[in-house]
């Protein structure tokens, strides 16, 4: 990759000129194209991603166009909320779920004489190349159309349309820069053992910022039918506040311009550009540390407990009573430690656990905010707990890739597939379930409905077990390599993210599998005896699903072991 840049930048004399942003874009396009070569399924997956992006963008354009016919206030609110969703989405989604596309890995540029700012600018330009950015651009361009329809005949119409265009472009830039800056900053934080707990807390705070927003929107929508004017006023107040933050500032520009409020528009543009500049500066700093930080990625920490036997050192004291020294015990002991010792695993573990903590709380707030206690809030609770359990189990959806080709050791030792998958499942249960139990308890106590506890635990068990089953099958059938990269949020473009989308399918599959218990919870959950029955059903259902899933997947793994190894081996 480094050589390619050199080739792209070298002139005939061999003397250097600094690479331009365009060179990075070309390099990324080339890399994407080479990634597709001879990989038909990657092309298919890419096309699906493209179609999905087009579909989403089309919906957005349609929505914005329709909003052009409503009153200017509604248009303002829509622009502010949609803009906030776009920018927040770009910032948070990579942290929580998908990671960022690191086709261009900054570490590969470490040996090239490229100035930092030029490198940052080039990486940014390359970051725009991709389906998400294109879909966002296309979707938000609906705002330009809407501005055209709304202000087309007005005196400052052309200026407003121009402002809308500027807003859409700067808004997208802000989102892309924010996604890069935030993930690489957190990558650095999560790499260092000293501050990783702080990083976890910050992610939690960021994630919980979804909560109030969701509450506001839900409340606005639900009350909309009751008293239209009141809810619009409330939404307007929120939109006013948002429009002075970088989240919505770029997207409401046309409304200021159309009214001739040039000062306000200028201020909002300044807020946006200032934020972009600050994020760029921050990001270019972390790029440098990402470039040199690779070698020190997993800094040394002495392991305590030497001197005793090797086996005793492997199986931690806390586990010694439970775990016997067998292959199962060894894998369980190692896995449960690696979830915390390995930066990449830690990153996904922390974000998923935080999301599964925030989601129920947010949903609970939303339903109680709508003042609709009773069956609806119960349903919301059921859904949130099911999601939490599902996401916990889904951590294993690509479980073999976390350690790269270290799976070789298992293959050489001929570990039985069932033992392998069940030990890994037991380890994630050991790590994730206690947290989720605490979350369920906390949510029921906060909502003042402790009688929901047994139902909640039942559904947690059922969804977690179903997710383990789905993840076991998925991890054996569609494993993919994670890049050997200092950034734990990095994923490979094209193939990797496409298979990551499969996890979404498995997520829905899990929800379907655990549906019977959800139904049982809805039918039986209202009485105390029924609630305990749901707990029993949920535990039995989850255990059975996990055993069956690992049984089937274990069989497949024994036949497909070498293929799994090839799939998770990073290509150099």
């Amino acid at each position: 990759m480094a050589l390619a840049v050199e080739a792209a930048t070298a002139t005939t004399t061999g003397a250097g000129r600094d690479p331009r942003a365009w060179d990075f874009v070309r390099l990324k396009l080339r890399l994407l194209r080479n990634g597709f070569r001879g990989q038909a399924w990657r092309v298919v997956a890419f096309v699906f991603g493209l179609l999905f992006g087009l579909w989403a963008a089309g919906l957005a354009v349609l929505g914005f166009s329709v909003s052009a016919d409503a009153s200017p206030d509604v248009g303002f609110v829509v622009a502010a909320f949609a803009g906030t969703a776009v920018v927040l989405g770009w910032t948070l989604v990579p942290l929580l779920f998908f990671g960022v596309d690191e086709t261009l890995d900054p570490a590969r540029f470490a040996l090239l004489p490229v100035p930092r700012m030029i490198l940052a600018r080039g990486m940014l330009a390359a970051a725009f190349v991709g389906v998400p950015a294109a879909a966002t651009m296309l979707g938000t361009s609906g705002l330009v159309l809407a501005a055209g329809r709304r202000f087309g005949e007005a005196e400052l119409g052309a200026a407003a349309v121009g402002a809308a265009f500027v807003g859409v472009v700067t808004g997208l830039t802000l989102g892309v820069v924010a996604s890069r800056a935030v993930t690489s900053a957190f990558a650095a934080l999560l790499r260092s053992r000293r501050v990783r707990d702080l990083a976890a807390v910050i992610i939690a705070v960021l994630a919980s910022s979804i909560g109030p927003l969701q509450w506001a929107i839900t409340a606005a929508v639900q009350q909309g039918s009751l008293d239209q004017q009141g809810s619009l006023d409330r939404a307007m107040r929120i939109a006013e506040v948002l429009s002075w933050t970088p989240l919505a500032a770029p997207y409401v520009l046309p409304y200021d311009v159309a009214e001739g409020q040039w000062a306000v528009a200028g201020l909002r543009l300044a807020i946006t550009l200032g934020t972009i500049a600050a994020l760029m500066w921050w990001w270019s700093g972390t790029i440098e540390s990402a470039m040199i930080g690779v070698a020190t990625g997993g800094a040394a920490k002495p392991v305590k407990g030497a001197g005793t036997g090797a086996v005793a050192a492997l199986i931690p004291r806390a586990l010694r009573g439970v775990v016997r020294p067998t292959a199962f015990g060894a894998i369980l002991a190692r896995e449960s430690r690696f979830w915390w010792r390995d930066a990449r695993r830690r990153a996904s573990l922390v974000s998923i656990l935080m999301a599964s903590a925030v989601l129920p709380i947010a949903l609970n707030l939303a339903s109680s905010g709508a003042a609709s206690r009773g069956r609806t809030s119960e349903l919301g609770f059921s859904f949130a707990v099911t999601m939490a359990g599902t996401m916990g189990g889904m951590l294993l959806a690509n479980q073999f890739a976390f350690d790269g080709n270290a799976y070789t050791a298992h293959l050489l030792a001929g570990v039985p597939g069932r033992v392998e998958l069940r030990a890994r499942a037991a380890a994630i249960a050991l790590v994730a379930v206690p947290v989720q139990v605490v979350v369920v308890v906390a949510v029921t106590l906060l909502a003042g409905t402790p009688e929901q506890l047994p139902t909640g635990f039942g559904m947690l068990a059922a969804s977690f077990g179903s997710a383990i089953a789905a993840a076991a099958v998925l991890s054996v059938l569609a494993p993919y390599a994670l890049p050997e990269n200092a950034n734990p949020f990095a994923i490979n473009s094209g193939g990797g993210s496409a298979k990551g989308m499969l996890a979404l399918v498995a997520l829905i599959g899990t929800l379907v599998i655990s549906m019977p218990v959800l139904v049982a919870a809805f039918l039986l959950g209202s009485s105390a005896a029924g609630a305990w029955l749901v707990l029993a059903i949920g535990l039995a259902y989850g255990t059975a699903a996990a055993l069956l899933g690992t049984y089937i997947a274990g069989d497949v793994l024994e036949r497909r072991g070498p293929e799994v190894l090839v799939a998770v081996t990073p290509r150099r």
Partner: protein
Amino acid sequence: MAALALRGLVKRFDTKIAVAGVDLDVPAGSFYGLLGPNGAGKTTTLSMAVGLLRPDAGAAFVLGHNVWADPVEAKRRIGVLPDGVRMFDRLSGAELLAYTGLLRGMDTAAVDARARDLLDVLGLADSGRTLVVDYSAGMKKKIGLACALLHAPRLLVLDEPFESVDPVSAALIRDILHRYVHGGGTVIFSSHVMEVVEKLCTHVAILADGAIKTVGTLDQVRAGRDLEEVFVEMVGGRTATGQELSWL
């Protein structure tokens, strides 16, 4: 019976044929060197021989057990040191050995005793508290070798065991392997370092472009010449004429 027998192994990656039908018999008790330039297919061949990479055609037998039809019995008898493969490197050396032993179903007492011995002999006992991820390249080779030896296999398959190992450690590894062969074990290892091969091996095979170019005992292959000379001739390397790179 041959300790390792390869029959017509073929592997194709996309359009490129990496290994084009390799037949090889490694006699029990031999010290076998698999020589070849970079990209000759050494790692691919050895991976197929030990059950890590499924061949497109052909079969591999370890002491009579078919690696791909009866992997459990075959894998029980081989110790493997792969090259360029990550280990579970967030464990310390002792923990990694314990892990490998338990994976292979050994009992605790045997694992503890052998792990202590191996760490002592390989000079890794002092680093008992360091994670493998923080080991030097040479130390990683040594802990990998220890993992391969732990269950006392009858056949050792080593991919580039001397790569990036310092001379002192290399001498140590040579000693251990010598003793292992003396005790009735069989070693096959890949390398492109002639000196090591000449010093150690009883048998040599030269692999280039995915095919065996020549095979036999060390003396047969050398035929009175220098091994390096034979190697370069077999592989078809070029020599510099002095015209190129004049701008250097």
